[in-house]
């Protein structure tokens, strides 16, 4: 399934809903969208991976890259993910220790500013 991206604002958070497959072919589009959001002034970004059915190392690299940019600007990025196959990817790469991970968008936005 092709990558889909849609953005909405919830209070101080910008929620980027991602769907489909995030891989070496589609990840550059995710990177561009995140950079656009950051350049436009977003500081607290929530990436909702709820409709993602495939995520590889290139996609993870893009998410870490965005986290680094946001942290450097005093902001933060958190992830919404409750699918076990995706959570396993975060555990195996130890990225579950890097990203604040939440089961729902509400939990992510209510947690306050992301680290």
């Amino acid at each position: 399934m092709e990558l889909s991206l849609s953005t909405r604002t919830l209070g101080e958070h910008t929620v980027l809903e991602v769907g489909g497959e995030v891989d070496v072919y589609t990840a550059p589009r995710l990177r561009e969208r995140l950079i656009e959001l950051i350049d436009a002034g977003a500081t607290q970004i929530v990436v909702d991976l709820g409709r993602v059915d495939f995520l590889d190392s290139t996609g993870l690299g893009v998410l870490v890259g965005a986290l680094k940019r946001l942290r450097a600007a005093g902001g933060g990025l958190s992830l919404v993910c409750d699918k076990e196959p995706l959570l396993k990817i975060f555990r195996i790469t130890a990225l579950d220790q890097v990203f604040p991970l939440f089961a729902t968008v509400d939990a992510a936005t209510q947690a306050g500013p992301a680290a």
Partner: protein
Amino acid sequence: MATVRLSFSPAPVHVRTARLVGVAVARRAGVAEELLDEVRLAIGEACTRAVALHRQYGLTDLVLVEMSDGGSYVVRVIDRAPIEAGLGIAALPPDELVNKSLTDEALSVGVGFALLAGFVEDLQVRPVDEGIGTEVRMVWPVAR
């Protein structure tokens, strides 16, 4: 033993095709349903790595994926990049992953290796028998 071979130009758009074929052959070979997500991810990572190496060295050679089913499901992903670039598997600790000096690409390579090593119990990365290149060999059990 049944064998399926797939060769593709080193372009990111074809990695998805390799994943789809790899999973279809795995299912046909009798790999357990609960392992198919891992098969899909691992074949994708091995092909992504091969494509990245070919692009890094400006190689137009095809990336070869060979799937065979003979007692177990064996997938070999073969690149034609210089060997010193392709050997060695190292997982990066989390604090290094967010290290500012690491580029997104270097980070993806480190994460890709971590995923391969984490998801494939029987994994070998070794020089090809003939010529230049490396082979990533992954084996999964089949239920018959």
